[in-house]
């Protein structure tokens, strides 16, 4: 329990962190995203734009110079990240050490597993466009590096889920189909069933049509109904109700802020 004294940082041009689709306005925010999103910063995060931001906006010329020198001398990229955490006085020494250990544990992973970790993380952050691209990278690896058939089935399944959330039902169907072909999972079949109900125009192969039983269709319909009921009770809807009960000025202002938030979320999902 403590209060951390903040540096005065004259940030005029916030740093845009593409990984999360947010702008960063302080050294504390920069440290926070590095520490909490290691998978998103492990490759090429420390670049000229970031160094310019550290030097000009955070007014940390010494750190910027150190980063440039370390980069030029071919220093390990992970050490550059640890250096930023260390210099910004937001995380303590023990926490920076833990961060280093986390990075090295990721580095020890086989490439396909590491990419999956990253793609899963992006998916969990609702960055479906980016997660789809990451899953695709695994499938583009040489055959021997793609992992077992079970692993590949999981990748196809997750790729399908990403496409589905991007409303690309055709691509989602193809990914689910490949996953099903590999492991014949009933869960995957159920997802195909969901897709077909969601998009009745979807063309499903005869081979799979046969497997979608009446019972499965009913089960899928029930799931959908439950999901719709749950959605009606969502907190965001309750907030919206509250907003519409406010006076016109506050309602208008709140609606503007909400639409802006939705737009940002949508951009992040699709990017």
């Amino acid at each position, binding site marked *: *329990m*403590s*209060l*951390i*004294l*903040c540096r*005065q940082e004259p940030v005029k041009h*916030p740093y845009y962190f593409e990984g*999360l689709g*947010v*702008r*960063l*306005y*302080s050294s*504390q*925010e920069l440290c*926070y*995203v590095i520490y909490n999103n290691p998978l998103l910063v492990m490759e090429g995060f420390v670049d000229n734009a970031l160094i310019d931001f550290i030097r000009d906006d955070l007014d940390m010329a010494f750190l910027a110079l150190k980063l440039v020198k370390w980069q030029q001398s071919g220093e390990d990229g992970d050490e550059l990240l640890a250096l930023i955490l260390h210099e910004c*006085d*937001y995380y*303590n*020494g023990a926490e920076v050490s833990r961060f280093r250990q986390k990075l090295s544990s990721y580095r020890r992973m086989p490439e396909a597993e590491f990419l999956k970790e990253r793609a899963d993380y992006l998916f969990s952050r609702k960055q479906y466009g980016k997660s789809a691209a990451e899953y695709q990278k695994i499938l583009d690896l040489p055959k021997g590096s793609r992992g077992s058939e079970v692993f590949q089935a999981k990748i196809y399944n997750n790729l399908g889920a990403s496409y589905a959330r991007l409303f690309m039902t055709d691509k989602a169907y193809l990914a689910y189909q490949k996953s099903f072909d590999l492991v014949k999972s009933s869960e995957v079949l159920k997802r195909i069933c969901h897709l077909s109900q969601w998009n009745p125009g979807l063309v499903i192969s005869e081979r799979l049509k046969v497997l979608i039983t009446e019972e499965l269709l009913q089960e899928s319909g029930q799931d959908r109904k439950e999901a719709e009921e749950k959605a009606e009770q969502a907190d965001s809807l309750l907030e919206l109700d509250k907003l519409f009960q406010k006076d016109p000025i506050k309602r208008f202002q709140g609606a503007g802020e909400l639409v802006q938030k939705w737009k940002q979320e949508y951009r992040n999902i699709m990017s």
Partner: protein
Amino acid sequence: MDGLIIGLDLCDAYTRICCHDREKSWCIPTVICRKKDEDAWYVGEEAYAYTLVGEGIIVDKLIKMVRKEGTATLGGIKYEGLNLLTMFLKKILKLPMEEFFCEEVKQLVVTLQKADAKIMDALMYCGDALGIPRERIHIVSHTEAFVYYVLSQKKEVWSNQVGVFDLSEDSFHYHELKVQRGLRKMMVIAEDEALEESFNLDILDTPSGGKLADKILSSCADRLLQKKLFSSLFLTGKGFERHDWAPDSMKLLCHRRKVFMEPELFARGAAIRGMDYLQEKSAYPFICICEGRLHSTVSMRVLHKERESQLVVAAAGDNWYESKSSVDLIVDNQDYVEFMVTPMDPKQKRLIKIDLEGFPKRPGRTTRLGISFGFLDEKTMAVVLKDKGFGELFPASDTIIRQEVML
């Protein structure tokens, strides 16, 4: 000369003006008069003159009027006390400007018997109306002006205690200062006492009244000065412009003590203070504890470079009116802030806790807390705590906590 450093002793009866490094001074009755048939304004003796001949309408007790947000109707027009004070100040500031052929005010230090927030705000407003930038205007108490005046004298004048009797039309005050030499910094502790024995100066015009006044002063001096070692004593105010009425008191006051008559002591002290404001390094490196200055230090325990330290937000001896600060802190798993208030006697230090009520629940270290401090008077600190969020990651809410803390 590239600007005047003006010391202005503003009282309800008289106003004294002097400039740093200039001998000439002015003592003007604090009155303003408007001519009955035209929009012409006069101050001081001129105002009395126009009123006596029946050409003008006079307004006095301007400070009291401003404090009470009062108004005066002159020639059918209602004027606010604040506007009358502004006009009065404009007129009297012209005196040194014309005398020394200088239009610019480099520093204006106003000294008041009692400097409360209302009159201080009003004087700042007057400064705005007169086109004097706020950073050039300062308001200090009589006690503080006395401290600066005394400490600008030779050391032998203030090596022990120093006292001043201020006898004016509407009050009788005694101020006393003591210099304490500390290991790190010198400290000056000055106090002010409004004497209940104040009397109307008109009684000094009769022999019996003079005798009574002499008795009053003697008894006050006897009570206030006994068993103390004084380096010097000062006498100031309209009542001491002549002292033939006080033979017994003078005998008592001058016994083994140096006594100085200084009619414009407070205005001179204010001008010296004004000069010091302009110095990069103060010529008076001491902590001054007196009316108008904070008597306690307020600090917070913060983490900086992984070390705990006390962040001083206001130090004892700071001018409370000018003591304003703000700081941003990151809250790490705690739902309150604590201030340490350390008075002159460190044994009496205490912690004041303010809960961050209504602040959104967020993960640790993702709430930036903006804290602003200011003072409503020397014993009341106003704190504003604002949720600044954590950038776009955790947007700020509208939560603001305002609290007054008694020091």
